C-alpha cells in the first residue's frame, strides 16, 4: 500500500492523482450488472425496508392473527392432552403392538426433522453458493427449522416411556457405575446430531437476528419493548469492526452448518439402515433421506410463506421470483426422491432376496398399498409439474403442490416404518397398525405447536432479515 501522507494536503497535484487512483481502486468493486433482475421491489430504500418490516411487529396483532393463533393453540392443547395421556398411562395408549414397535411416533419424528432441513439449507448452503435471493426468506425459514426440530424432539422423548429420565442418553458420570451410553448405537448418534443441529441453527439464527433486534431497539416506543430488544441486541451499534468479524463468523458457521445439514438426516436414516429389517437395510438411505428432507422442508417453507406474504403484505420482498426459485429446488430434490424410489424398487428385485422382494410387493399391493401410492404420487409424480413455469408462478398451484408434497412426505416415513415392520420374517407374528386417538392427538398437537410457535415468532422478531435485504437492495441498480 502506498505511503500515507501526514498533513491532509489538497495542494500537490501529483499526490492528488495518486490518492484519487487509490480511492478508485478501493471502491472499484462496486459495479453492478444492469442485466440482473432486481431481487426485491425496485422502489424500496433502506428506510422503507426498516419501516415495512419493523411495523409488522410494532402494530398490535390483527384479527386474522388471533384467529389463526386460537386455532393453532387449540390444536396444541389437544396435543398436550394426548402427551399427558401417554405419560400418565403409558405407551400402551399408542396403537403399537409387539410386531409394529415404531409407528406414528417415529414417523412424526422423521417428518419434523425433515421439515427442519430447509432453514439451515437456505441460510448455510445457499449462503456458501452466494444465492442472494435467500435474504428475503432465510429468517422465517430458520425460525421454522428451529420450531420443527423442537416438534421432532418431542416424539422420541415421549417414546422412551419415561421421558423424565431423558437425560440418561447423555454421557455423564453417574452413580450406576459409571455405566456409559452405547456410542455404537445410531439412536445415540441421533441425540448428538439433533442437539448439535438445534444448537448451531439457534446460534446461527440469533447471530443473524442481532442487527435487526438493534433496529427494533432503536425504534422501540414503550419501555418494555426497549428493555426486551436492548437485552437481546447486545449493544449492537453497526460498527465496521463488528461487522467484519461478524461476517467472518457467519461464514464459518455457514461452512460448519453445510455438512451438518447433510449429516443430520443421514444419521436419522442410519436408525433404519443399520438394522436388518428388509426395506430398511439399504445403503441408499442417507442421500435418499437428505434429499427427502430438503424436499419436504422447502415445500413447508413455501406453504408457510405464501399466506405470510399475503397477510403481511410482503409481496415486494418475497416475490414470485423467490417462490419460483424455491419450486425449482423442490423439483430438483423431488426428482432425487423419485429416482430413489425407483432405485429401491430395482435393487429390491435385482437382489433376488425373497424377503426384499416381498416387502416391495407388500408395499405396492398389500394392506397399506393406499399409503404407498399416496406417497408415490405426491412425491414423485405431482412435483414434476414444477417443470412448467405456470406451476412455479401461479400462487394457488404452488400452494396446492406444496401441500401435496407435505402429505406425501409424511406418508413416505409412514410407509418406510410401518410396512417394513408389520410383515417381517415370521408370518405368525404379522400384524396391522391402527393408530389410536392418542396417536392422532400427538400428530395434530405437533402441528399445533408448530403453528403456535411460528405465529409467536411473527409477532416478536422481524420476519425478514432487514440488514441482509438492505445489503442486496443495490443488487440490480447503480
Amino acid at each position: 500500500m502506498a505511503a500515507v501522507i501526514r498533513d491532509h494536503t489538497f495542494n500537490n497535484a501529483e499526490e492528488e492523482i495518486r490518492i484519487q487512483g487509490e480511492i478508485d481502486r478501493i471502491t472499484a468493486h462496486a459495479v453492478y450488472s444492469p442485466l440482473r433482475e432486481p431481487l426485491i421491489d425496485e422502489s424500496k430504500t433502506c428506510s422503507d425496508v426498516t419501516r415495512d418490516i419493523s411495523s409488522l411487529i410494532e402494530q398490535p396483532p390483527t384479527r386474522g392473527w388471533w384467529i389463526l393463533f386460537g386455532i393453532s393453540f387449540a390444536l396444541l392443547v389437544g396435543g398436550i392432552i394426548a402427551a399427558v395421556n401417554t405419560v400418565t398411562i403409558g405407551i400402551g395408549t399408542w396403537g403399537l403392538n409387539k410386531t409394529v414397535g415404531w409407528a406414528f411416533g417415529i414417523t412424526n419424528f422423521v417428518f419434523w426433522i425433515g421439515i427442519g432441513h430447509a432453514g439451515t439449507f437456505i441460510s448455510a448452503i445457499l449462503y456458501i453458493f452466494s444465492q442472494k435471493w435467500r435474504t428475503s426468506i432465510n429468517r422465517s425459514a430458520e425460525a421454522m427449522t428451529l420450531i420443527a426440530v423442537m416438534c421432532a424432539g418431542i416424539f422420541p422423548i415421549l417414546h422412551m416411556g419415561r421421558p423424565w429420565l431423558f437425560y440418561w442418553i447423555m454421557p455423564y458420570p453417574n452413580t450406576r457405575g459409571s455405566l456409559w451410553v452405547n456410542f455404537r448405537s445410531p439412536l445415540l448418534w441421533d441425540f448428538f446430531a439433533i442437539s448439535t443441529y438445534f444448537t448451531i441453527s439457534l446460534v446461527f439464527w440469533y447471530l443473524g437476528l442481532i442487527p435487526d433486534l438493534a433496529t427494533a431497539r432503536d425504534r422501540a416506543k414503550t419501555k418494555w419493548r426497549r428493555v426486551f430488544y436492548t437485552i437481546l441486541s447486545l449493544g449492537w451499534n453497526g460498527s465496521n469492526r463488528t461487522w467484519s468479524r461478524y461476517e467472518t463468523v457467519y461464514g464459518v458457521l455457514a461452512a460448519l452448518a453445510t455438512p451438518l445439514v447433510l449429516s443430520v438426516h443421514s444419521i436419522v436414516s442410519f436408525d433404519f439402515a443399520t438394522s436388518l429389517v428388509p426395506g430398511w437395510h439399504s445403503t441408499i438411505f442417507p442421500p435418499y433421506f437428505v434429499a427427502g428432507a430438503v424436499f419436504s422442508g422447502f415445500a413447508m417453507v413455501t406453504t408457510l410463506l405464501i399466506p405470510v406474504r399475503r397477510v403481511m403484505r410482503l409481496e415486494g420482498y418475497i416475490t414470485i421470483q423467490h417462490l419460483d426459485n424455491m419450486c425449482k429446488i423442490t423439483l430438483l430434490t423431488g426428482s432425487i426422491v423419485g429416482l430413489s424410489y425407483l432405485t429401491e424398487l430395482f435393487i429390491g428385485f435385482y437382489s433376488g432376496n425373497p424377503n426384499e422382494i416381498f416387502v416391495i410387493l407388500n408395499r405396492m399391493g398389500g394392506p397399506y398399498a393406499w399409503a404407498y401410492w399416496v406417497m408415490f404420487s405426491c412425491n414423485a409424480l405431482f412435483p414434476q409439474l414444477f417443470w412448467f413455469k405456470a406451476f412455479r408462478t401461479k400462487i394457488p398451484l404452488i400452494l396446492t403442490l406444496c401441500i401435496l408434497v407435505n402429505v406425501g412426505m409424511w406418508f413416505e416415513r409412514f410407509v418406510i416404518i410401518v410396512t417394513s415392520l408389520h410383515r417381517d420374517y415370521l408370518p405368525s407374528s404379522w400384524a396391522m397398525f391402527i393408530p389410536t386417538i392418542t396417536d392422532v392427538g400427538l400428530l395434530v398437537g405437533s402441528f399445533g405447536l408448530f403453528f403456535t410457535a411460528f405465529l409467536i415468532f411473527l409477532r416478536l422478531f422481524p420476519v425478514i432479515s432487514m440488514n441482509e435485504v438492505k445489503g442486496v437492495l443495490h443488487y440490480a441498480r447503480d
Partner: protein
Amino acid sequence: MRATEPSEKTVRYAAAFFDNEHDLMAIAAEARLRGFVIQDVFSPYPIHGMDRAVGLKRSRLGWIAFVAGALGLISAILLQVWTSAYDWPLNVGGKPFNSFPLFVPVMFELTVLFSGLISIGVLFMMNRLWIFSKKKIFEGVTDDRFVLVLKQEDASFDNAAAERLFRKYNAIKVMEGDKFV
C-alpha cells in the same frame, strides 16, 4: 484488527453522517490516505470492501474456529474411546470395544458444535457484545445512515481539511463529541 484496537475511552471525535454506502466507502478510503485516524465506520449492513477502505486486516477468527473444531474432535475421540474401551468395556453385539468407525458420527458432531459455539463466544467477547453493553449508538445507523468517525487525537487534527472532506462527499450531518465508548 487485532492488538491495534484503538482505545475508546476519552477521545474527541468528529462524526459525519451519509445516506449511502458508496460515499462512506470513498470518504473512508480518502480520509485514511490523507492521514486522518479513522475511529470506526458504522453502517446498517456489512459493506464489502470496507475493511480495505479503512485498512483493517483480515480477522483471525477463522483460525480460532479451526482450533476449536480440532478441540471438539479430540474431545469426542477421547470421550468415546475411554468410555467404551477403557472405563467400562461392554460387549455390544460382539463388536470390538474400540469400534472406531462407529465413533465417527459423534466425532463429527462435536467438532461442529465446539467450533460453532466457541467462534460465536469469541466474536461476542472481542466485540464486547453482551446484554449490559453500553456502547455509543449513532442515530439512524440501524436504519439507513452511514457514519464515519474520525479521531481527533491531538492538536494536529485539521478541522478545515476534515470539513472539506465531509462536504466533498455530501455529509448530511456532522457532529463532534468526546468520550467515545
